């Protein structure tokens, strides 16, 4: 018999999947180790098929178990895989190369002293712009920089940057606030939608809400007769289990389909005139209508125009438009992040959101979110830290382009690249005159809020080769992480981060997927080795950089009282949550109860399904755009005098976070333009296959890659190739193939299937990085094949790529 656990505690899975912080795990702990786990049982204990005992109201209010996914159920096995864990400050063994992964233990004092000394030296020798942080923006480090008076951060995230920009331009919601503006929870979809239409959405692999609960809600809707249609170049689990009908669409062309749908809406007059009159800015709408109907360029964006681009027949587009506009109102339409994480992604998301606007589907019950999936109520759970320091940390590059920002500087210095071109290439978003002063020498990476979340540089952002080259240019690399990863191996000094989910006490909030809750991680096991919380690390660095630690983290008193201080910070954070709900007449559990297995189910506290839109414009409050309405046409972007300003601010003086100094080919209104390296790019002559890099169900970027209970046990990391493409290359299932383009080459086994359309291929992102001497990655991570599309201004370019596949003989 297995050992009996000495304690059983509830905790929340925090691993930066799409459902982050939504799943609840009952951990059985014995001897300081998590030996087994059970799924959440705080609702409907002992019930397998919960919907059998639930009313529709229960589903809308999410009175459901927060069951973890496959990863969450075996996370604890990974926690105790000690060969990957970083337990002590480490320094690269002198004489070994970066990437070899040979490290020796040092003390915290030595580690922190070294980092502070190197930062100060670099600042003295190379100026204030010499310590930089790569992907992604690191708010904690940025705060440290602001008091220190030097350092460079980046802007932009991979998750839904096109939405973050378009949300600001169209609806006046800056940055992450776009999330608050998200509308229509899954419960609302289930209760009110008459049809569900999904573009590129696969919640059977991705995690939205607890595990695959979003998929379950779509299936429940289908079971009660709501038609479900999926457009995707792959026949996914969503195509099989959730959808009544699957319609293949060429990747990267969804924007053309949205424009054609808008054409039908205008031409057959399915416009929701009442909604448009109240909420859509009329002059911009007219300009866009004129473009869609072809009055300007002589090209009406008809379904016949679109079918040649996206391969969805014109009759299908017309019929779909009539269904969602007339016969099945309200329609739950969702174009997933994947669709917009491609070249021209801003145009795609704007075309979609504009289509929803003319159909009257912004935030109205049953209509699907215009920008972001899942509501996030407008309150913060972190207690304030006080204002940042006087130094305004510049954002010199889009975070994906940190490596190019480093490497291309040479060409600027020797005159091969103009400063204008340089700024365009890297997404510069700061005072344009600072290019000459930029002198990157120290790379400080990781250690934000989720230190085990991922390993973005060589395995999850584009062009592993360039990432490595740029790291080689650095004089000193610091990495803070809980695990040795392919990127951490390139560090000179590694700081051991406390595991956010298992070791640290944390207040946490589920964000995506329409199931909002506030959860707690109690610190399930004692911190291992000498791991430290990231806040502590920055406090100690602050001291060494001559900053008063209380300026950085106002709850800090001294080291002896760290636990008490940190607890006070958590409690004050929680008080804000209590206050938010109290103002709405709702009681939530007191701190003691909350920290002992309690939680807040936000959906349960409100009478109806949450949509952020009701809190804003639908309730009569104007939007924070210049017109107070939804703006399909952006006057700011149309005004060429604005291009080239270091930073861009809206009419209320708020920074437009995702708009770089030069927005290159971003248009003021949604138009269609062929994508660089898209399905119809001239480069298809050499590299005829479009590479998708969708997430895996069984890992989060690099996290869990080496998990023995996941890879090889439950899944195989292979390249998907269509049957016809495989036959043409004499490739059979399981054959080893080389996948290559002008950026790199990987070696991987083939998964031959009819589940992906011809000309399209898929390697799931994350994975390992194991370059051999010839540079071929046997890890392999698709990052090796990815590269920046310099034309698109904000979209993560990594999702637009072409490759060739050849069988490896022998």
């Amino acid at each position: 018999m297995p050992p009996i656990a000495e304690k059983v505690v509830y905790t929340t899975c925090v691993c930066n999947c799409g459902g982050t912080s939504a799943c609840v795990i009952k951990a059985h702990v014995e001897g300081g180790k998590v030996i087994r786990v059970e799924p959440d049982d705080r609702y409907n204990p002992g019930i397998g098929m919960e919907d059998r005992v639930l009313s529709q109201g229960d589903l809308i209010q999410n009175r459901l178990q927060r069951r973890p996914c496959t990863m969450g159920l075996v996370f604890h096995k990974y926690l105790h895989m000690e060969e990957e864990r970083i337990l002590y400050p480490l320094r690269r063994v002198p004489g070994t190369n970066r990437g070899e992964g040979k490290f020796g233990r040092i003390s915290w004092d030595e580690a922190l002293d070294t980092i502070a000394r190197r930062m100060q030296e670099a600042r003295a020798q190379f100026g204030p712009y010499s310590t930089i942080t790569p992907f992604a923006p690191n708010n904690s480090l940025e705060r440290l920089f602001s008091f220190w008076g030097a350092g460079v951060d980046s802007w932009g995230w991979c998750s839904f940057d096109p939405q973050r920009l378009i949300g600001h331009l169209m609806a006046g919601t800056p940055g992450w606030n776009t999330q608050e503006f998200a509308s229509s929870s899954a419960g609302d979809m289930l209760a009110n939608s008459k049809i569900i239409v999904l573009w590129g959405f696969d919640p059977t692999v991705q995690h939205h809400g607890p595990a695959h609960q979003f998929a379950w809600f779509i299936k429940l809707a289908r079971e009660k007769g709501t038609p479900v249609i999926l457009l995707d170049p792959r026949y996914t689990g969503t195509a099989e289990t959730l959808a009544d009908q699957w319609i293949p669409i060429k990747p990267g062309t969804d924007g053309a389909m949205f424009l054609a749908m808008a054409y039908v809406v205008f031409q057959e007059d399915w416009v929701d005139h009442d909604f448009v009159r109240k909420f859509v800015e009329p002059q911009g709408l007219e300009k866009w209508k004129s473009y869609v109907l072809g009055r300007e360029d002589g090209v009406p964006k008809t379904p016949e125009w679109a079918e040649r681009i996206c391969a969805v027949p014109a009759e299908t587009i017309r019929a779909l438009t009539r269904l969602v506009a007339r016969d099945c109102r309200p329609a739950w339409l969702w174009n997933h992040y994947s669709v917009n994480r491609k070249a021209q992604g801003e145009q795609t998301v704007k075309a979609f959101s504009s289509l929803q606007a003319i159909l009257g589907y912004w935030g109205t019950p049953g209509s699907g979110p215009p920008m972001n999936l899942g509501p996030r109520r407008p309150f913060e759970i972190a207690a304030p830290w006080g204002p940042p320091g006087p130094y305004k940390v510049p954002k010199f590059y889009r975070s994906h382009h940190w490596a190019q920002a480093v490497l291309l500087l040479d060409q600027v210095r020797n005159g091969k690249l103009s400063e204008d071109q340089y700024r365009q290439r890297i997404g510069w978003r700061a005072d344009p005159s600072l290019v000459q002063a930029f002198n990157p020498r120290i790379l400080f990476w990781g250690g934000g809020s989720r230190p085990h979340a991922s390993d973005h540089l060589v395995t999850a952002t584009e062009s592993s080769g360039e990432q490595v080259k740029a790291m080689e240019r650095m004089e000193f690399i610091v990495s803070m992480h809980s695990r040795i990863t392919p990127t951490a191996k390139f560090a000179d000094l590694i700081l051991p981060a406390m595991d956010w989910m298992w070791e640290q006490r944390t207040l946490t909030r589920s964000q995506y997927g329409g199931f909002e809750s506030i959860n707690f991680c109690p610190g399930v096991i004692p911190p291992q080795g000498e791991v430290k919380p990231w806040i502590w690390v920055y406090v100690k660095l602050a001291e060494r950089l001559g900053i008063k630690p209380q300026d950085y983290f106002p709850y800090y008193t001294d080291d002896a009282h760290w636990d008490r201080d940190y607890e006070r910070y958590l409690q004050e954070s929680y008080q804000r949550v209590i206050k938010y709900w109290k103002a709405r007449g709702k009681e939530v559990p007191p701190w003691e109860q909350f920290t002992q297995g309690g939680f807040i189910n936000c959906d349960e506290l409100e009478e109806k399904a949450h949509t952020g839109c009701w809190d804003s414009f639908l309730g009569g409050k104007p939007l924070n755009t210049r017109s107070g309405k939804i703006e399909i046409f952006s006057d700011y972007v149309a005004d060429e005098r604005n291009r080239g300003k270091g930073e861009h601010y809206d009419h209320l003086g708020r920074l437009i976070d995702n708009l770089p100094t030069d927005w290159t080919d971003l248009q003021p209104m949604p138009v269609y333009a062929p994508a660089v390296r898209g399905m119809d790019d001239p480069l298809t002559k050499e590299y005829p296959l479009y590479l998708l890099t969708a997430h895996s169900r069984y890992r989060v970027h690099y996290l869990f890659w080496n998990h023995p209970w996941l890879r090889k046990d439950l899944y195989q990391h292979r390249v998907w190739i269509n049957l016809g493409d495989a036959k043409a290359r004499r490739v059979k299932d399981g054959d080893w193939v080389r996948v290559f383009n002008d950026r790199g080459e990987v070696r991987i086994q083939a998964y031959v299937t009819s589940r992906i359309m011809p000309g399209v291929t898929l390697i799931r992102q994350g994975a390992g990085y194991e370059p051999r001497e010839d540079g071929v990655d046997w890890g392999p991570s698709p990052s090796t094949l990815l590269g920046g599309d310099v034309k698109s201004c904000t979209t993560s370019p990594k999702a637009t790529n072409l490759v060739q596949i050849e069988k490896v003989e022998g």
Partner: protein
Amino acid sequence: MQYGFYFDQSRCIGCNACVAACKQWHLLPPGAHKWIRVYQWEKGSVGNMRLHFLAVPCYHCANPVCAKACPHGAIQKEEQFGAVLIDPQKCQGKKRCWAACPYGAITFGEEKSGEKASKCTMCIDRLREGKKPICVLSCSMRALEFGPLDELKNTFGGLRELPEMPSGNLSQPSAVFKPSQPKRQILPWDMEKALRLWKSRGPHAAQDSPDLFGSLEDLMEIPANTIGRDRLVLKAKNKEEFMYYTTDND
């Protein structure tokens, strides 16, 4: 009383959460000790694709053919829940139970002779504490249920097998099923036209851009062994094949 499982194929997404939950709860090592397995296999081709999922624990049959096949009396049917349990003390590792079971429910971790058989215990440890099997409680699609078999039959109907599964006439598995949901054509979609459109690179492509495929036959005709998981293989020939049929590419 006989307890059993209900599996709703129309809800399964093949996510393997049941497998992960089982392995960690029962402290099973990585590899072929899968007391519940998830199979995934595809049928058809572009335009009429189907993907099938099947989660298979031990069905704790009313007539356990595995027990009958064991010369050492190592497999017994337990009274309280009707669980079919292996006594590792008595098992000699002859694998006759494996040969007898139509579902491949008996697992061996390595291909060593004399290795003891192991399989799903119906989570009898949990049942005795009043808890349901861990797989059932871990399914985020709520595709699994567990209870007295008669109750399951009353609630979910008496379907005893799914397409491509072996007949349960002899062993009488303690399980009922719901098959996958039929597709509905909501929108007109002319497959030949759609594929003709797909074949072309599109209006913005260079003149001499290669087509996306040659002919419809290229997409429809499936030579042997080109596609791997094109059928349900409950009883794999060896460990490598077993791992192949019980993994996916997601």
